[in-house]
């Protein structure tokens, strides 16, 4: 039983968790530098040249 449990634990991939953590930290740094405000500023404006008008 214990052996089975050990095998199951071994088969868990850790790479996804490390990847998610790295990007989570990046996102948090972005939030602390105030990038969220900049994103909102851009997203609420119609970018006419971006959509091919103007």
């Amino acid at each position, binding site marked *: 039983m214990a052996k089975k449990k050990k095998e199951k634990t071994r088969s868990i991939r850790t790479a996804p968790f490390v990847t998610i953590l790295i990007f989570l930290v990046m996102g948090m740094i972005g939030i602390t530098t105030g*990038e969220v405000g900049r994103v909102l500023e851009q997203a609420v404006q119609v970018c006419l040249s971006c959509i091919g008008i103007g």
Partner: protein
Amino acid sequence: MEAVRKWIQTILALLANGSWSFPFTRTIYQGPLKVVCSPGLNCYSCPASTTYCPIGTLQQLMAGIRVAIENGQHFYGLYVIGTMGVLGGIFGRLICGWACPFGLIQELLHKIPSRKFSIPRKLNYIKYFFLLFFVILLPLFVVDDFGYGEAWFCKYVCPAGTLEAGLPMLMLQPELRQTVGILFFNKLTILIFFIIWSVLASRPFCRTLCPLGAFYSLFKGLKLIKLRHVEENCTQCKACHAVCPMGVKFNESPEDTECISCLKCMDKACKFDAISLEIAGIPVGQRSRPRIPVASK
């Protein structure tokens, strides 16, 4: 399973485009939800859009990076890349199959009866060029006298922007029609090209041009949720080849960058339980139909 996926695609497309006051306001949604990242390609200049497009926003941040630094603001796109990376780390290209509004549109177009064609595999690599150059390098390095770059992919290529934002905005604001020029007709041509191609081939934009798909495909071996090939059950019958909308030969390359985890191969094609869904290496699901006994292999 396919019906469930279609429902989820539709619900997520409506959630990403949940502001329906635009016929009265005649402009885009400008509320606080726009700090939420759209997992799929969904233009934030779409009048109904309640989320930001990661590709559009990343280009804008790259284009304005010099001016931001000059003003003492450290906006390097970390919030956007971080969000995209978390989504990529959890789902990878599963997002393309389950949460992208433009992917859903292409799937619906492909249902139109016509002769169907395959897409040469070499064309799949073009999207990495667009991710690197049109989303990152050109907006970053080709700048005007004031230090501002341009959103190259949005401005010159993105057919999703033309369909979801360009055409609706022209309808909502007739005065904009006077400003229509070669840029718009260039993008309209690209849109028409992809509409026709979507009828004839499965998901051509996702496979050849989408920079967001290219970004998510970088997580092919790192994503939390993915399909697993159970080699001991596989009979090499190649039934999975026929149903894949992305042209993946799953039994030959289970870690294929093009796999959007739509589960068609697992649920519709494989009769021998040779394909299963796993989360972080732990199998969590197999097809919903009963398994054919091993003796029938």
